């Protein structure tokens, strides 16, 4: 049976107990990232990624060559000054970094486009504030159908990879929240399916020792099937044309979200259009 990837604090007191597991370590600074990568190697933990949640803009954050090919999910508040960011380009390209920017800040929507155009893999984080859904749709259009070469912009790329017309789309792996792959542990070893759930003390297990029997827990099964509960109600996401691609993720993340329905439906159309274009690659008519 495949084990879940454990998303836990990089300074969790129980790291030794995770020997043999694959983990995503959440840290608050690049120095902590350095330390946890070293610790994990010593303990025998496979590093799926290090998620750095920094308050420092991308332009001036330190990027360490020592990270090598270790996947780094770099959550920063902003891109910062362009001239600063340009100085980081070498390392952003050689290291294995994906830059996450919260799109409830308007300038970050532009920043994602700039970063992607420079070949930097990046991701839109939904944040907690109001989102300009039209601008998000433009970003999705650029990500999925933009003709100029650019780095991937998540979650759109993952949506396109996972989308099946007659199924639900699981793209939450971008945020380490796909419950079939990731489990979140707090500093005490309590388990939940997302950092948001952990924050709300909505834990399905109090015991880190349940990691190996996770899939047998009734709470786990309930969570996997929780998506159905939306159909108890003839409102909200159940009547959304874009539900099969969004699955209610946006609604659950963003409180004030008028427009997310149109966004989700639009993204679904874009994903289908891209698949169609890739299926129908025709030769140039002149030759």
């Amino acid at each position, binding site marked *: 049976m495949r084990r879940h990837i454990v998303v836990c604090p990089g300074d969790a007191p129980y790291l030794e107990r995770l020997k043999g597991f694959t983990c995503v370590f959440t840290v608050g600074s690049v120095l902590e990232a350095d330390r946890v990568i070293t610790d994990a190697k010593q303990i025998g933990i496979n590093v799926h990624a290090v998620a750095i949640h920094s308050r420092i803009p991308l332009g001036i954050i330190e990027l360490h060559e020592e990270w090598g090919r270790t996947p780094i999910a770099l959550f920063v508040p902003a891109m910062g000054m362009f001239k600063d960011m340009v100085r980081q380009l070498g390392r952003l390209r050689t290291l294995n970094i994906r830059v996450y920017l919260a799109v409830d800040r308007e300038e970050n929507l532009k920043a994602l486009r700039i970063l992607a155009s420079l070949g930097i893999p990046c991701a839109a984080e939904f944040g907690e504030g109001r989102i300009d859904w039209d601008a998000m749709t433009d970003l999705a259009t650029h990500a999925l159908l933009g003709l100029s070469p650019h780095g991937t912009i998540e979650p759109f790329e993952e949506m396109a990879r996972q989308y099946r*017309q*007659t*199924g*639900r789309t699981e793209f939450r792996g971008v945020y380490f929240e796909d419950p079939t792959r990731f489990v979140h542990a707090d500093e005490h070893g309590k388990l939940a399916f997302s950092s948001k759930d952990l924050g709300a003390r909505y834990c399905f297990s109090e015991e880190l020792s349940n990691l190996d029997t996770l899939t047998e827990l009734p709470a786990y099964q309930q969570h996997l*099937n929780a998506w*159905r*509960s939306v*159909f*108890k109600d*003839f409102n909200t*996401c*159940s*009547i*959304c*044309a874009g*539900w*099969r691609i969004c699955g209610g993720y946006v609604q659950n993340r963003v409180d004030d979200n008028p427009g997310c329905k149109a966004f989700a439906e639009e993204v679904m159309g874009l994903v*289908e259009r891209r698949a169609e274009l890739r299926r129908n690659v025709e030769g140039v008519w002149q030759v």
Partner: protein
Amino acid sequence: MASVILKVTERCNSNCYYCDVVNKQDQGGSMSLEVLEQVFIRTNEYLQSLPEERINLVWHGGEPLLLGPKYFNQVWEFQQEHCAATGNRVSHSIQTNLTCFREDFIPTFQKLGIGAVGTSYDPEPHMRGLGRERNTILYNAQFLRAAEILEKNNIGWGLIYVVTKRSLARPRDVFYFLTNLKLTGGINFNPVLIYDKERQDVAVSPEEYVQFLGEIFPLWWHHRSRYPDIEPFRSLVDNIIDGNTSLGCVDSGSCTFQHINIAPDGNTSQCGRSSDWGLLSYGNIRDRSFGEILSDSQREELAARVIHLAETECDGCRLWELCHGGCPLDSWSKHGEFQHKTEWCIAKRGFIEKYFEPITGTSYKPRGVLLPC
């Protein structure tokens, strides 16, 4: 293939607003094991007399699953006992509201080869619901739990959605709700059939039904690979664009010699509605074989109806081959006799001419086959 509709019980745990069974004064209880055994004796007898023939047993109600897993295990045992040589030509279907479906039905369903179940759902509160108070919340919770069990066990399910007056306010919401709930399709939009004056608040006219379909058809047509198997759209594409002939019992004009409805007491009729209305009684399976029931002389009137309509009311109708005058029971409910076309003719024609043909850019061309096979 003969279809035998087994109304194994007239009891139901649900109290759907538009259902006739719930409001029926004289509910016939449930089918005894003695009658059930007779079903399999008759099935075997029929199949032995016709070596190429097959039978589909449709478990219906009321709510058939109220009888519990043991009852359906008994079904399997009777089939083993009485259809040892013919059982491979017996198939099973079931129509259930799913609210009392549990894991312990699964082994028997698998033994009977039930790979999919037919069910219904209505997102509108208080249309379907459990008990006297019509508890929609409990109904929905139990239904969704059952859907989860079915999918976990790789048993498919399809939905009938009954279009009522309340649906007319939100056709697109209904469409998205159901196609989200059942992403792989298998959804049938049928008009509600109300025969009393008390519930006219939910009744829809053929024109209103057309209006409902017309609202959702463009959504389906433009994204039909996203929403497969939505009826009546899929069938119309099959018949009008793809040139196939695949019509349901209402439109095929060929139910006459293929259907038997068996009530809990073993009395037979043409179908559920004719049984409810005391029409076309073909006798009891204790006294008559399936062969005798299927060749009952009363069926001649139904057979004659198709010919009669083709020469009278439906003469010259370019859509004749798509409906054959519709269901004789619809004629009865309107005119008190079978020899008229269905009042839903307006709906079929209206939808095809107002929406289907203009939106798809096609025009139906009859094949010139006057009578159904």
